[in-house]
């Protein structure tokens, strides 16, 4: 299974010197190796390349997707993207220990008491990867991803 690969940051520029670009690519490569999933792992927390993925674990996934954690460590707002249907959605709910109805009800409770901003839904994994790749502060969950999807992947045990 190919792992998600980091894309060029939205802050990258075509006028950046080649040396800087090479250093940036090398840094991403190192990050890629560090974040490489163990053999057999197929589930990924995916974040926009502008987000530092350090410290994200299974508990962080629960906190983020259940609306308890709303900012990244640098203060940037977390923007959640979800697949409307399919294996990624089903696996996410399994990890959260929620049914679809419980998940939706929990989020509506947050939205109407001022405690959170509703996640954005998209149709299918390709759209999810694209949305996370282009949205600063974005996060998503996928059961599999393709190389070149333009996101940083954090493999989950």
């Amino acid at each position, binding site marked *: 299974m190919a792992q998600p690969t980091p894309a060029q940051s939205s802050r990258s520029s075509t006028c950046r010197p080649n040396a800087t670009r090479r250093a940036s690519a090398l840094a991403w490569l190192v990050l890629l190796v560090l974040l490489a999933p163990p053999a057999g792992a197929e589930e990924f927390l995916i974040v926009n390349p502008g987000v530092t993925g350090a410290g994200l674990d299974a*508990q962080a996934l629960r*906190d983020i997707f259940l609306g*308890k*954690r*709303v*900012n990244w*460590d*640098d*203060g*940037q*707002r977390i*923007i*959640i993207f*979800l*697949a*409307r*249907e399919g294996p990624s*959605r089903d696996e996410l709910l399994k990890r959260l*220990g*929620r*049914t*679809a*109805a*419980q*998940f*939706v*009800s929990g*989020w*509506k*409770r947050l*939205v*109407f*008491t*001022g*405690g959170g*901003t*509703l*996640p*954005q*839904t*998209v149709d299918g994994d390709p759209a999810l990867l694209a949305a996370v790749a282009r*949205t600063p502060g974005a996060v998503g969950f996928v059961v599999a991803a393709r190389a070149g999807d333009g996101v940083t992947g954090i493999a989950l045990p």
Partner: protein
Amino acid sequence: MLALGAAAPACAVDLGIDLHGFASQGYLVTTGNNYLGPTLQDGSFEFNEVGLNVVATPVDRLRVGAQVVSIDAGDFGNNQVLVDWAYGDYQLDQRLGFKLGRFKIPLGLANDTRDLDLTRTQVFLPQAVYPVPLRDFYIAVNGVGVYGTARMGGLGTLDYTAYIGGQNITAQSATARYFTSLGAGDTFSFIHVSSIEGGALTWNTPADGLRLRASLYHAYRLDVLGHTLGAATPVAGVFSDNDIHAQLHDFWSGILSAEYQWQDLTLAGEYLRNYSRNDVVVTSHPFINAPAAGGPPGSTVRVDLPVATTSTISYLRNEGMYLSAGYRFLERFEANLGREIYFDDTQSRGASFFRSWDLSLRWDILDHWLAKAEWQHVDGTAFASRQDNPQGLKDSMDVLSLKTTFDF
């Protein structure tokens, strides 16, 4: 298939602004007693909620927003437009966040969602713990709050929240009408709470789906100035205009809660205790209606008698509890069975109480549109109010409620 989240337009993300709303309309019909208005024969459609909110994240870590609601439940609410919440929320990190403004009070599992029909299976929250007439008393605090989550390794996580501030309860509010049932007058000129504070601890246990919560609410000195005009007195022919000053010292509410979610099954149970000491001072202005000398036949003139003042001390010691089991038996259908018990006075449990069974059915017609039906059988006289039933309260009643809710 139930869809997750919302397909919001891209601009909602770019600007960090979200707009959401909900609208409910219900129908209520009862046997035995009226409940929340005249519901005995043809039922009542005076049973709705509408809400609209906007939230923005102008800078990192800060979220600001406000929601207005309009509620009608028989004589309660009457569709006045109220500010439900309006506050700024600054989350330093997950361990520590602050709220400033008007925000919902965390009390029990559901106090903050009293008006949110879409978050539950039942039409009515268990009235033994969340009575409709006291909504305004519990719903929100104007002040400052702190909250966060602590990780405890293998012991799960602990959510904490605490708040302090004041409260707006107007003399026209739903809660004011509740004081009528306590004998604090038929009309009110002043209701004021000096301050409120409280908090909640929620333990998300290592047992997946099990959470336990303890929450406490304290209102320091609630003053009510009520008036009753022309009340009958024990002396035949003598009436009285009464000014009533009821002062509730240190009103406490405590709730212990447990909830367990396992796949499509949700079990919940809560136990409530309320306590306060009440000083009631009644200043009576007695009078008689004497025949008017020289006036038309049958005309009278008011003759005032000496003013009298009486002072009494009473205690409020409510106790309420419920158990409920909800099960989503089809993707869009959920049923809930509940058992409630409530006592007006823990030192005299047989005097005024109610016990009830309720059965609820929820149908999620579309992702943002639902319908519900609920039947509740109640034994005891502490469920319905005397104001709704001047003919006297019957020991047994049934409540059938239907409701539909739309949200976006």
